[in-house]
């Protein structure tokens, strides 16, 4: 089984560790597949404007540089650690109320997707780019300040667009995902080195981007594990 984490932030947004060091942390710990998913924050709200102001978001201007840096590191990780690194972003639609907020992982992204677009448009654009989408921390969390409930509250509408839901994020487990029998993965939502030890996904597939995406989409050979030292 491949040990995977598909939700990782670096200093390109609000992570505390540089990209190269983040890759090394996961490589040194023996991971097989990871996705770098820095925030792309909507600029049409107060929170979003602040994120842009303090450079806590990947923007249209630095997106290509971000993707190039991730690809360069991916090549290094493949050679040194035999670890697959996938380019991704976390589209972060942040508003003052948790009911309106939602975060979406876009894995294997190729072109910039603005977070201020409507949900439907974001999902369709991700699909056009042959990326997969994952609804992040979709339910109530132990740390209430990070709740993002929009997608869960509107699940009937958006379910068809979402390839998988996070059934576990860092230390939280969302049993509603299993009750609804949605496709699932578990991620660490890495921002600091201690977040390495958190919920992770195990995949039974080849170590190639397409195989990993297919495995998540079809949700066969997927298991979750609480990675602890």
């Amino acid at each position, binding site marked *: 089984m491949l*040990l995977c984490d598909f939700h990782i932030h670096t200093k390109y947004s609000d992570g505390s560790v540089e990209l190269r060091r983040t890759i090394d942390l996961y*490589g*040194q*710990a*023996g991971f097989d597949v990871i996705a770098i998913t820095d925030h792309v924050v909507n600029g049409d709200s107060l929170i979003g404007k602040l994120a842009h102001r303090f450079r806590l978001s990947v923007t249209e201007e630095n997106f290509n540089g971000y993707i190039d840096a991730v690809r360069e590191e991916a090549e290094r990780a493949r050679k040194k*650690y*035999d670890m697959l690194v996938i380019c991704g972003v976390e589209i972060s639609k942040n508003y003052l109320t948790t009911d309106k907020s939602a975060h979406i992982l876009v894995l294997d992204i190729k072109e910039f997707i603005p977070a201020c677009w409507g949900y439907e448009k974001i999902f369709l654009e991700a699909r056009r780019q042959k990326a997969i989408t994952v609804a992040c921390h979709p339910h109530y969390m132990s740390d209430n300040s990070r709740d993002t409930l929009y997608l869960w509250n509107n699940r009937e509408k958006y379910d068809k667009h979402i390839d998988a839901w996070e059934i576990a994020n860092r230390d939280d487990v969302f049993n509603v995902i299993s009750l609804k029998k949605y496709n699932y993965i578990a991620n660490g939502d890495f921002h600091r*080195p*201690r977040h390495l030890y958190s919920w992770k996904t195990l995949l039974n597939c080849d170590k190639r981007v397409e195989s990993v995406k297919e495995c998540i989409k079809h949700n066969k050979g997927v298991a979750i594990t609480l*990675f602890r*030292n």
Partner: protein
Amino acid sequence: MALFWIFAGLTALGLAGCFLQIFAVRSYLGRPSRKGLSYVFPPVSILKPLKGLDDNLFDNLESFCNLDYPEYEIIFSLQDRNDHACKVARKIAGKYPDRARVIVEKCNEGLNPKVNNLIPAYRASKYGHVLISDSNVLVDRDYLKEITARMQESGAGLVTNLVKGVGGRSIGSIFENLHLNSFVMGSVCFLEKFMKMPCVVGKSMLMSKEDLEDIGGFRAVKDVLAEDYLIGKLMHDAGKKVVLSHYMVQNMNQYWGIKKFLNRHARWGKLRWRIGGVRYISELIGNPVFISLIPLLFSGASAYALVLASVASLAKTLGDWYLGKKTGSGINALCYALVPFKDLVIGILWFVPVLSKSVVWRGNRYLIGKDSFLQPYPERTIWAFRYRVISAIKTRFA
């Protein structure tokens, strides 16, 4: 006032001790010139007991696969195939199939988990010399040549190495590295140079199988916490030389929490208290920062007490900075401002072994007796009840 002068005297004594430690470390810096000398490099089996993920584990293990040495093998030994280190070890073994292999075998011969891990690896090793090396150690290409050359030129039965802490990126790791590079390194060199007492560091021990068998093999140390100390002592008692190499191995401590630092030094303190007895008191005197702060407790913030504490802290900080610079530890100069705080914590930790004799090591809990002999932690006594209560409180407030 008399009390103040007593502590001032003890502080001066401690600072003198630190000065001697610096002097002792200096004499081990740099490698002796071996130009024109020829050595026979015997085949060596490197035994790597693994448990859990250490910082920088992949690079640490890989550094042993790239040694400039004619013939050697590496055996990664684990007790459990679900251990996260197993995945890393298998990746390394896959990358260097001619050099490294992984052994997963449950062994319950003793209470020391590291020795339990070493016994199957030792059994599987094929060469006449064994090098025991911890998983958190990083070395350069010439490491093995240096220590085997040292073994030959000194005719030693056991060669051990100095350890320097590197890579600190969290407060716990910085504390750890500051302490390893001052007190620990200084004490090892001081004991070797001035007291002629061999102090074996378990992070790197090279010996021949024949010599190890003569002292009873790993089974002789299977129930002690300080297996490295006891192996050195048994070698010494058997008339074999125990020497310290000039080569410094790097101990990677990058992302430690403060709790891990406290746990390790409480454990090491208990170990030294059980082995050293009253000599353990000298460690408190060897902590001039802590001693100089005691008058502040008794006489308040008087000018004398403040001057004493400031002078001791400054002198100790400068001494540690000098050692760090000389040994190339790579610690940021600003981090040395933490030396007085670290020494204060270490001073408080000094009292823990007097109050408690239980140790937690890599997830196992033991009672520690004389000469660091281990006993299983009792399941049904008041001790166990005490820990159940503490863990329940911890869980409640987590």
